[in-house]
């Protein structure tokens, strides 16, 4: 398959891995920021190809994992209302809130539907004017523009039965939190797809402050190995700069149209991250002019949830301070069938990835 097979070529992957082995002379701890990268690393067993002295930490870039419990609870509360059709991407349905997940709400009678795009939810709203259609707007900068477009179209088309429950979070504030939190991350594989939207000006600023190599990295095996090789080279040379080997998708300014759309529809707010806590200016909420499409305006705001007492340590995992296999609940009390926390739910969650593809 074009644009995939080239980047999974075993010979190229092995050649890059050999270069990594030849170049690295001292230990390196690096973090792949995005859950999609974690998924690829474990799915293709890339760690087997790397020197033991490379320590990979799995970052917070999995939207399913970091959406806070109180938003899941709010989603369930809205979904249970008889007038509501609750639309969501598939993998949010199994994320546990305080009392069950959206799939269990569905089996108890809630009208919960999997959609592949926010536009599908908007179409459902147009086709069902007597129902309230609520879309769970989850994800990083990558999914935000499409969700913004749905809100904008609902607004201009006066589709007044369409609203969004916004849970958007932003990558750079999370990376800064990790750097400030004392985790010894010596280099980042930045999330390539988020950068297609944002570009990488934020990372230039971050490097000036924290002096850490940041390499914009894709999701196929050779992308990830190439990203690691560039981190290794910078590490060995004592450099700290942004490099962009994922140039087939990412341009330095990103996608200005998508950015403008996000600015039009969203404003930057403080957000709670599951397992990590509040991070200032780390997420999106709707601009006041789109309030009538805000599910929180329509169905009441999100309440704070009591402290998580499940014993889930996913916050430490998401900050690279604990390896999934070192968690006492891993594979015992916590499995994909009975997840304690969200990192065990999504295939991109570090814990689920380790469970399905043990190193």
């Amino acid at each position, binding site marked *: 398959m074009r644009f995939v097979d080239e980047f999974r070529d075993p010979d190229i992957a092995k050649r890059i891995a050999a270069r990594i082995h030849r170049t690295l002379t001292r230990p390196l701890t690096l973090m792949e920021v995005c859950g*999609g990268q974690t998924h690829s690393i474990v799915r293709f067993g890339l760690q087997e190809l790397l020197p033991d002295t490379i320590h990979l930490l799995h970052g917070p870039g999995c*939207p399913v994992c970091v959406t806070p419990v109180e938003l899941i609870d709010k989603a369930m509360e809205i979904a249970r209302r008889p007038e509501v059709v609750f639309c969501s991407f598939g993998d949010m349905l199994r994320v546990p809130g305080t009392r069950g997940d959206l*799939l269990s709400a*569905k*089996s108890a009678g809630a009208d919960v539907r999997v959609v592949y795009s926010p536009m599908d939810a908007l179409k459902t709203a147009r086709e069902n004017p007597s129902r309230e259609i609520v879309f769970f707007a989850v994800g*990083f900068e990558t999914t935000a523009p499409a969700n913004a477009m749905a809100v904008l179209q609902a607004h201009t088309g006066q589709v007044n039965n369409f609203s969004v429950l916004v849970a958007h979070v932003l990558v750079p504030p999370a990376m800064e939190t990790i750097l400030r939190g004392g985790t010894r991350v010596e280099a980042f594989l930045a999330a390539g797809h988020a950068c297609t939207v944002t570009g990488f000006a934020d990372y230039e600023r971050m490097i000036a402050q924290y002096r850490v190599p940041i390499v914009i990295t894709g999701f196929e095996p050779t992308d990830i190995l190439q990203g690691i090789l560039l981190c290794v080279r910078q590490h060995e040379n004592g450099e700290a700069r942004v490099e962009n080997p994922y140039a087939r998708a990412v341009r330095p300014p990103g996608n200005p149209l998508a950015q403008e759309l996000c600015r039009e529809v969203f404003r930057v707010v403080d957000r709670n991250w599951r397992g990590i806590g509040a991070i200032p200016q780390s997420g999106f909420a709707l601009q006041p002019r789109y309030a009538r499409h805000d599910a929180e305006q329509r169905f009441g705001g999100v309440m704070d949830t009591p402290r998580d007492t499940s014993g889930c340590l996913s916050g430490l995992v998401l900050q690279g301070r604990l390896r999934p296999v070192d968690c006492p609940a891993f594979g015992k009390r916590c499995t994909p069938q009975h997840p304690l926390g969200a990192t065990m739910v*999504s*295939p991109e969650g570090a814990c689920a990835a380790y469970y399905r593809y043990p190193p």
Partner: protein
Amino acid sequence: MNDFLSICPIPFSDADECIQLAHGGGGRKMQDLLRNLILPAFENPFLRTQHDGAVLGAGNSSIAFTTDSFVVRPLFFPGGDIGTLAINGTVNDLAMCGARPRWLSAGLILEEGFPVGTLRRVLDSMREAAHRAGVQLVTGDTKVVDRGKCDGLFINTAGIGTITHPVSIGPGRVEPGDALLINGDLGRHGIAVMSAREGLEFEPPLTSDCAPVWEPVQALLDAGLEVHCLRDLTRGGLVSALNEIASASGVEIRLEENTIPVCQAVRGACELLGLDPLSVANEGRFVAVLPEHQIPEALSVLHAHRHGKNAVRIGRACSASPGQARVTLRSPLGTTRLLDMLSGEQLPRIC
């Protein structure tokens, strides 16, 4: 009576737990439901084999008996419809017992308001599929329920097949030293149905692999090959089927990823949706397990058949220490990973 009274009570304590779609998804949740609720309720040696059908002795010959229900949405999809599925699904379950499919029953559950013209199309498909598979539909039942109480049309079929080969076939018969082959590429049915349901379009269009597979199975048996296990790769796909076999036989199954055929359209769709083609449903694909030295002959036998011409060897069974039965996959990069059964249905990923 005493026999019945001595049976354990149903060990299921979660009185307020509800059935979820995942309980029918062919993954671990369905296994749990079978193991914890359904099998204990009817405990007997036939069910215990967890085969695709029951093999029942009667004098010098034996028969296979099986049943299956069909609830597909939409009713019509590229390459088939609920009628072809209802015939081929049961025919294939019989074939997996090494039985020649002979007689089928059909139960139709119709929703009030269902168009008669649509029912006629489905019945035409069933007649054609039965003719192609060489089976007769000999008994049936029809029920109509209130509007909104079922999704248009549900079909149950049961089937009887006759076993004339002395080979004992079952998921618990796989031994270290056996090898596995499949009769064609994976994932077409699941992706074709999903694309019809969700309005996803692929170029070229993808059609279901729905087909009867008794002919290639019969050819293997007629050739005198020592077939240890046959399994059709329906819900849960290759991954679920092989995990069931590994755990029933106590072996490790090792697969080579680059030998497993998946067509471009299915690969592309799975990449887009974040699905694993090895866990996607098929309706005309099966895995056959035989001693390694018989694989070349088995492949040449299968290659002579329409529904076996793309058969390939995909891996082998190895010994596993107790409790270590599992399925592993070696990637083209030379790395190895575990193929664990999914919890329920695969859910498309966010990004």
